[in-house]
């Protein structure tokens, strides 16, 4: 099934995505190594009586065991909390800083831009709903636009109107030569058909 879900929402920061890959790879390697080690132990590959002995000498009653386990647990908890916090960080842009001079700064609410873009797109024929958000940086913002089409819309026509007119006006307002945009056209299921 290939719906809009096939396009991953590009809202996480590139840094968070990289950290996720590394953490998952390391976690996978550690678990794999542990599994292989236990398997080898159980099969007697590391000495026949190894599997029958206690994991720790003395059955884990030595004085250093509890502090070490505690410290290890704390470290795991800390790293997990850091990883969790990282997931909440997105590269959504709430406001665009247009100018920061001695005389004062100029800030544009991201919602102001997305609201007017949504209104313009929704005013196009064949569009049922539109939602937009910004990402990137103030100097190089990116626009994400999701457009739900009404029954008998021509997706090509809507796409041309969005990229040709609405995005041109957005560039004009922001005085940008480039405003990379990601436009998702969402077709109603009943009339869904591939873009030629």
């Amino acid at each position, binding site marked *: 099934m290939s719906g809009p879900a096939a396009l991953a929402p590009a809202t996480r920061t590139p840094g968070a995505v990289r950290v996720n890959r590394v953490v998952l790879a390391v976690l996978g390697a550690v678990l794999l190594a542990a599994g292989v080690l236990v398997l080898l132990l159980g099969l007697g590959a590391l000495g026949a009586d190894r599997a029958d002995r206690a994991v720790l000498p003395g059955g884990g009653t030595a004085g250093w065991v509890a502090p070490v386990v505690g410290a290890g647990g704390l470290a795991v908890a800390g790293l997990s909390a850091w990883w969790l916090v990282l997931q909440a960080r997105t590269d959504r842009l709430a406001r665009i800083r247009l100018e920061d001079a001695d005389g004062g700064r100029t800030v544009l609410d991201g919602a102001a831009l997305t609201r007017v873009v949504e209104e313009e797109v929704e005013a196009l024929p064949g569009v049922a709903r539109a939602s937009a958000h910004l990402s990137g940086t103030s100097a190089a913002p990116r626009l994400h636009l999701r457009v739900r089409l009404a029954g008998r819309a021509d997706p090509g026509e809507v796409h041309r109107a969005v990229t040709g007119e609405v995005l041109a006006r957005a560039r004009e307002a*922001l005085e940008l030569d480039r405003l990379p945009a990601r436009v998702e056209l969402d077709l109603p299921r009943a009339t869904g058909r591939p873009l030629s």
Partner: protein
Amino acid sequence: MTAPPAAVPPLPEPEQRGRTTIADRAVERVAAAAAAEVDLATGSARRVLGVPVSAADLPRVTARVHGDEATVEVDLAVAWPAPVRQVARQVRARVVEQLTGLLGLRDVRVDVRVGALVPERAPEQRRVV
């Protein structure tokens, strides 16, 4: 040094005779009116959870005055798709001009926050009072 033999003792320097203070409120009024004079800038309605709850007539201004310096924050809407940065510059220039000219402030910093972009209405729909 001896005092001049006049009946009236000389007045102290003007700065020592009293102080003129300009209220924040006065600066806010003047700045709001000045900002509204810029063609492509208007007020933006105050929004709570995205729902407009106040009329959008004049830009909202908050100001803090220290002596003859002032920091002014202007919250306004800009006509779409006018270049926002240039409209903000015009607003800043106009506000500084009026505050220095009318109130005699010397150092004015104007921060502009654009809270809405409003598509331009057809001329007959625009109400001029």
